[in-house]
């Protein structure tokens, strides 16, 4: 879309375009952080059998994060005396830049991307790996032992988990034959063409990738860097106010970025699951159709990304935290060999197996997954939940449990 615009600009028009694009992306990161924090609190609340924020902004407390953000902005900005001033100040911004750069090449729709690159996925992995440096500097510069421990753990964890993550990303790259995120997404229109259903190896690669992505975003059960039961708050113990906000903007930004990669590499990108491209479908309507198609594409992509972010939250509030040695063992002993096998396997699969067998297995995987998902949804919908008890407001009375005496009798 910007191509025809570009002809009217001189060289320096590119600066204006870049400024607009980066402002849109920064704005998206902010809104994403605001929305994700609110979602995290609601999800955590529901999983822990409470309500989460309810008041600010009318229903559902949907403005709670904005209010919290305001509070953080006017908070006193303390820097500990033992901290290294320069590193303490610069750390959060390095993390934010690392997270932000990933969005430059992340396509939100067909052509809705700040810069389309031929090696987009590689670029994303590269810049997201530089986010860790900011975290380490935060940990070291704070001049606190808790922070230092958090930073060290983060360094060890990130450097290890980058390897299986990159190798799992290579699996769909091998299948699609391109590192261009736009091309990869365009090659999977139609639900059964999604690369996650392509063959058993891509199917496993999706789950392996998602595990590694959770670890590289330092999400629970891998949040050893900020393990609040051991390290107060880990690497950001000493932070408050705006810099703390920046750290969390970076964290939620990279959460969406890895989810976006998962969407594009495995889950069809902005594809609705229908076998045609929306921008082409509405192309007959001219510019209006193009806009409609792109808006639907972007909305679909955002919903997919946030669903994966939701899964990350779901896992976080469900599973207990691992120990640091378990985290390292999981990566070095299991995930790296698994990802090596997946990479070799997918190459041989595409090289040796006849196309007929490949497509049959692909449809089989798609069918089984669809049936599984359908069964899950059926169970969720038809699940008869227990009635709230009378003993305490909001407490579930487990009358079906054997030996249950009832809260009233105690």
């Amino acid at each position, binding site marked *: 879309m910007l191509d025809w615009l570009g002809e009217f600009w001189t060289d320096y028009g590119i600066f204006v375009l870049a400024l607009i694009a980066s402002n849109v992306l920064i704005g998206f990161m902010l809104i994403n952080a605001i929305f994700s924090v609110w979602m995290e609190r609601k999800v955590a609340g529901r999983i822990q059998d409470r309500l989460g924020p309810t008041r600010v902004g009318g229903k559902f407390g949907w403005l709670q994060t904005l209010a919290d953000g305001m509070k953080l902005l006017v908070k006193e900005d303390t820097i500990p005396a033992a901290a290294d001033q320069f590193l303490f100040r610069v750390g959060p911004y390095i993390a934010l830049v690392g997270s932000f750069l990933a969005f430059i090449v992340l396509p939100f729709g067909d052509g809705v991307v700040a*810069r389309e690159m031929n090696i987009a996925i590689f*670029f994303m992995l590269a810049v997201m790996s530089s986010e860790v*440096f900011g975290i380490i500097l935060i940990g070291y510069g704070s001049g606190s032992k808790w922070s230092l421990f958090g930073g060290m753990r983060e360094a060890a964890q990130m450097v290890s988990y980058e390897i299986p993550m990159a190798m799992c990303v290579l699996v769909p790259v091998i299948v699609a034959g391109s590192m*261009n995120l736009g091309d990869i997404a365009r090659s999977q229109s139609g639900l059964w063409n999604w690369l996650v259903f392509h063959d058993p190896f891509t199917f496993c690669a999706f789950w392996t990738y998602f595990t590694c992505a959770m670890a590289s975003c330092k999400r629970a059960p891998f949040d050893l860097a900020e393990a609040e039961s051991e390290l107060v708050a880990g690497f950001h113990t000493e932070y408050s106010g705006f810099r703390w906000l920046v750290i969390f903007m970076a964290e939620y930004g990279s959460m969406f970025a890895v989810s976006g990669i998962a969407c594009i590499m495995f889950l069809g990108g902005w594809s609705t699951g229908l076998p045609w491209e929306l921008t082409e479908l509405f192309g007959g309507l001219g510019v209006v159709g193009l806009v409609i198609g792109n808006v639907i594409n972007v909305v679909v992509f955002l919903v997919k990304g946030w669903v994966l972010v939701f899964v990350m939250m779901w896992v976080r509030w469900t599973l207990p935290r691992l120990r640091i040695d378990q985290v390292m063992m999981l990566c070095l002993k299991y995930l790296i060999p698994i990802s090596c096998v997946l990479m070799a396997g997918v190459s041989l699969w595409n090289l040796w197996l006849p196309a007929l067998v490949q497509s049959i297995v692909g449809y089989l995987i798609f069918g089984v997954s669809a049936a599984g998902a359908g069964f899950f949804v059926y169970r969720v919908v038809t699940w008869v939940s227990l009635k709230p008890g009378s003993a305490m407001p909001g407490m579930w009375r487990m009358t079906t449990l054997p030996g249950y005496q009832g809260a009233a009798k105690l």
Partner: protein
Amino acid sequence: MELHAFMFWLIALLTGLCALATVITQNIVRSATWLLFTLAGTSGIFFLLGADFVGAIQLLIYVGGTMVLVVFGVMLTAQGPFINMKTSGAEWAISIVAGILLFAVLLFGTWGRFSASTSTPEDPKDSHHAVTIGQVLTGVPYGPFDSPTQVRAHYLLPFEIVSVHLLVVLIGAAYLARAKRRGEEPK
């Protein structure tokens, strides 16, 4: 000023200043941080030169891998006296003089000595560099088919040697840095 020249001066000045700061600062962790900025600036230079694959590799391996390793090492060994180790004034003077001389020699040796031709850099959207590099590394010869003066070369052997080298490095580093067993206490 053209856009390319403007971007070059912007990135090059930042990179050069960060490199100078790397040298000047006495604090080893800050030095590593400035080095990080220098490396990121260098990758910016690579992107500017149209070598986006090398730029991304630079970010991935240097910034994400090597620098984390260096800072890891700094953290493991950083104890009070070693963070700020002062260098004497005489050493500084000698080094700076030698450095300026070396810079003058290098400039004299390179400035205006090479002819250059250029084409418009490829759009990163359809840059073929990653593909060509991959082919060359896996043994598909590269080069003009009809030119008698140029050799069609591939780099399969160096690639294999590097991979074996990395394996040796992996084992060697693990061996060197392994935890000492009880009984062979450090002196």
